[in-house]
Each structure stands twice: as C-alpha cells, then as structure tokens.
C-alpha cells in the first residue's frame, strides 16, 4: 500500500493531497497544466522536499516530517518514475539502458533469467531489433518504449508515470498502457499515472483523482467522476463545455427556491438529438456551426444566448432549429458544488 499525505509549497499555491493506493491498484491524476500533478510524483519519488508529509510504501516510511523525521533518498525508495522525457543514458546502448537498473540491483550479476526477461520485455515493447542501437538513433516513440522497458525491468515496488505517452500515436499509447496494466497486475505494485488527457487516465486507472491549483477536487471511479462531477470546476476539467441555467419550468413548486441559480452541465458526448423527456434535460436552439469530428459531427447550437456543443452522428444545417436532450446531466448550485441526488430527483 502506497500512502501519501503531503503539503508542498509551490510559487503560486500549496499542493495538498492525501491518497492511498493498494498493491496492484492504479490511480490516475488528472488535471490542467500546472495543477501540481508532477510535483506530487516528485515528492513521492524523493526529488522534491515537502513542507509537511508522511509517505509510506508498505511498512517502509519514505518521508516523514514529523518526529522521527525520515527522508529516504531517491535511490533507496524503490520507486520507479517515468517522465515525459525518456531520460535514456546517451552513452549506453538500448540493451545497456534496459539492464541499467538490473545491474544496480544485482551488482552486475544478471544471469540467464534476467537476460531472458530483458529479451521478453524488448519483444513485448517491439524494440527487440534495437537492442544494439544508441539512443541518439531512436525515434521519440522508440525512446519512450525503451524508457518504459527500463522502468518495468527495474526492481521497484511502486510505479509512477508522469505523462509518459505525450507525443505518441494512439495505437502505441494503447499498447503501452496495456503492457503497464499487465505488469502492475502481475507484480502487484501500486501505480500512479499523471495524465493530461482524460481518455488516457480512464483507460489506465481504477480510480481517478482530479487535481486543480494543488488540491484534489474529487477522487473516485473514472466513470463516476466523469458522470457525477463533484463540482462545476471538476465538470469543466473532465470535458463539460457549457452550463445552462435550469429552465424555470423545472424549478417551480416546492423545489423552486432550492434550484434558483442551478445550472446543468452539458457534455458534448452526452447529448442525443430530438426530445426524450425521460432521458434528461431537453433544450432547443439554432445551429450556429456544424463540422466533422471523426466519425461524428460537432454541432454548435445557440441556446438562450449560450453556445452548446454536441457531437452527434448526423449533421444539421446551419440556421435550422434543433431540439436536443442532454442525457442525465449533473446539476450545480450557485456555489459550484454538485446539487444532491435528492434535489435532482425533485427536479
């Protein structure tokens, strides 16, 4: 179990987080640039000194700012960190980079088993033909694969991945994500992924933590976080692009006072065409723009003076009236917090 309770001072804010990751579990940290995600990983890896912290991995205290003060150096933590920059050693071949950590652990005594594991990892990563190459000759994707292989071959007890797939194509990302997941499950180590893209975080993690301005805004199952954001800010971060006031007709009666100022979060992918009163919030507007987005069409509507984007299977002519249904939208009160299920039910 990796347990993290830290406060780290940054120039603009303080990063505060309290997280637990069980062996074999995967947590993704998701948030905008500069939210403090990388700082958190660097504190866990021992590269950044926190103001206050208690970090334990299993029975081992890695950092404790309270008596007895502990600050294990990075090389004694047995925590593997893979960063956006692959950080391959330019004077070593791909093979020597891959076995770098292994030779540290065994003082150069890598036997046949270790060699077989190295070859097997190289095959899994598709870099078996590059073992004799120098890092300068590798493409960006190849270098990332070598760095990942080096991390997975090291004898670490926790894996930290800091946006490791940035700049890689989608199929390679999927391959590498699957490989990491299988390794985490096989070795039963806790793993953390810092991701800039929601889909990447969802594909990887059992749990998703949303970070902003140094604080953990919400933590939960990826689907739960995306479908039931705890606040309007979380909703913005996970892809809700518009927040429309709840129609007066929906705010009448006993719930009228409670719902005043309440907005519904609109996610472009949670919209269906036409009126479906039983599915959610029905809105009508005028098509302002329509353009292709993959196999779907991105349609921009003007709804009561607000722009609402929907990704739908069929195009719509610009200027046409259109009715859409926002399926099961989350609602947020004037303070930005999610409105309770009870209040939503009454709506």
């Amino acid at each position: 179990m990796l347990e993290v309770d830290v406060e780290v001072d940054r120039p603009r804010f303080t990063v505060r987080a309290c997280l637990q990751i069980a062996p074999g579990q995967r947590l993704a940290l998701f948030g905008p640039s500069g939210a403090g995600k990388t700082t958190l990983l660097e504190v866990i890896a021992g590269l950044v000194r926190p103001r206050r912290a208690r970090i334990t991995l299993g029975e081992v205290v890695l950092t404790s700012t309270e008596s007895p003060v502990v600050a294990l150096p990075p090389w004694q933590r047995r925590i593997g960190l893979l960063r956006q920059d692959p950080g391959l050693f330019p004077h070593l071949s791909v093979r020597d980079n891959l076995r770098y950590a292994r030779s540290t652990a065994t003082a150069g005594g890598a036997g046949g088993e270790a060699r077989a594991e190295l070859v097997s990892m190289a095959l899994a990563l598709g870099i078996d033909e590059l073992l004799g190459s120098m890092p300068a000759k590798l493409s960006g994707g190849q270098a990332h694969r070598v760095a990942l292989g080096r991390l997975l071959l090291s004898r670490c007890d926790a894996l930290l991945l800091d946006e490791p797939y940035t700049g890689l194509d989608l199929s390679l990302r999927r391959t590498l994500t699957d490989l990491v997941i299988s390794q985490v499950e096989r070795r039963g180590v806790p793993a953390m992924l810092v991701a800039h893209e929601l889909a990447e975080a969802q594909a990887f993690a059992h749990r998703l933590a949303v970070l902003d301005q140094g604080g953990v805004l919400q933590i939960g199952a990826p689907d739960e976080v995306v479908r039931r954001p705890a606040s309007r800010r979380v909703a913005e971060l996970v892809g809700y692009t518009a927040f429309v006031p709840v129609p007066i007709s929906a705010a009448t009666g006993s719930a009228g006072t409670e719902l005043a100022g309440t907005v519904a979060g609109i996610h472009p992918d949670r919209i269906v065409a036409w009126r479906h009163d039983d599915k959610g919030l029905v809105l009508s507007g005028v098509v302002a723009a329509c353009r292709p987005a993959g196999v779907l069409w991105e349609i921009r509507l003007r709804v009561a003076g607000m722009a609402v984007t929907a990704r739908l299977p069929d195009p719509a002519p610009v200027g046409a009236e259109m009715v859409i249904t926002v399926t099961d939208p989350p609602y947020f009160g004037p303070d930005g917090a999610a409105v309770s299920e009870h209040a939503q039910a009454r709506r």
Partner: protein
Amino acid sequence: MRHVSGSLGLAGALVIWLALLGPVFALATHLSWSAIKSSLSAPGAFDPLVVSAESGAVTLGVLLLIGTPLAWALARGTLPFPRIWEIGVLATLLLPPLVIGLLLIFMIGPYTAIGQWLSHFNLSTTNTFLALVVAQVYEAAPYYVLGAQAAFASVDPRLEQQAALLGDGPLRAFRRVTVPLAAPGLAMALAVAWARAMGAFGAVVIIAYHPTGLPLQIWTSLNETGLPSALPFALVLLVVALPLPIAAYVWSARARGRRRG
C-alpha cells in the same frame, strides 16, 4: 561572386592555419640529424625528459584528485558564492607564470610558515621535485578545472537524477553516468593540462631551477651553447607533450561519434 568569396575565405583560413603551425614547420626545417644526435647522445641528455615526464604525471594525479571535485562542484553550483570560487580559479590563469613563481616564494618559500612546517618532514618547495610539481600544478590547474567544469556542466543533471531513481547512490551515479558522459571533455581538459605542465616555465624557473625539466633544459642550452643545441630538446618536448592531447582529441571525437550511433 559566391565562388570568389568562398575562395577568399578558404585562402584566409589557410594563411591563418599556416601561421599558427609556422613554429612547428620552422622546427622541422631547422633541425639537423647531426645536431639531434650530438645533443641527445651526451651523458644525462634524457634526464630532463625523465624529470618532466615524472613531474607531469604527478601533476596530473594531483589535478585529478583536487581539481575534479572542485570542477564538479563549480559545474553543479553546489558551492556558496560560486563567482568567488571561479575568480580564484581564473586568477591563476590570468596571473603571468613568472609572477606566480615570485608569489609562490612568498607563500611556500623556505622562510614562510608553510616552508618551515614542510622542513620538519625534510621537504622543501624550492629547487626540488616537489617545487617543480607545485609550479606545474599552479600553471596547469586552471586549464584542467575550467575544462572539467565545462565537461561536467554538459551533463544533464536529470540523467544523474534518473540514475538515482534507478537505484544508484551519488558515487555510483557519478561513476556510471556523470564520468562517462563528461569523459570526452575531461580527457581534453586533462590533455591540455598535461601540455601546460610539460611546458611550464615561468613559475618553474623561479622556484624549481633544479631538478631540470625539458623547458629549463631548452633555456639553459640556448643560453650556454646556442640555438642549434636547444632545438633537439624542443623536439623532444613536443614529442612528449603532444601525443596525449592528440590522442585525447581523437578519442573524444570517437566517443562523441559513438553516442551519435
């Protein structure tokens, strides 16, 4: 027009290159086989060579031992007030060697506190092998420290951090990552320091007239018997001093080439 300017540039570079190598050409054209034979066949003719080689080797050892940590600390900015430390290194580079020799007399001469302390161990820093090494260290140190500092600065600290994350303590990461990556630059710095140590004259002539190394032998031969008898020793000095820098240059270029794959 472009062709003409290209030719002019090439001609200018060739003139500068020939001018820089002019002294070597002059040495080659003015040396006679008989002069070499008579100068180097005299009894004890190779003693200055032995003295220079031995003192040069000891000087390199001292520089490696004390200059390498200083260069690393300067490159990583781990010392407080780094500019002050750099000024100290630059001072020995900017002071004329003769002045260094004179000042060393006041610092470690036989009547100074350091000189008297050394005398308890039957050591002296004037006209001894130790004095020769001290003079050579002062003349060569800034070249090594500044060169090694640049070599260490060229190593990305994130790679050292990466080694730590993979389980290497500082010393092990230094040996496995920092030194190999800085090695081409370190080799060049060491080679330049060797050439400076072998050719050290200004400070040496003040505090270490004896034992006589090659530069002093050239000087005394020139004064006592003239230019023809000094030239063979100049050739010996070049033959001894230059191979290491040339080898270091070739090795560094190959090492960088290997990294490029």
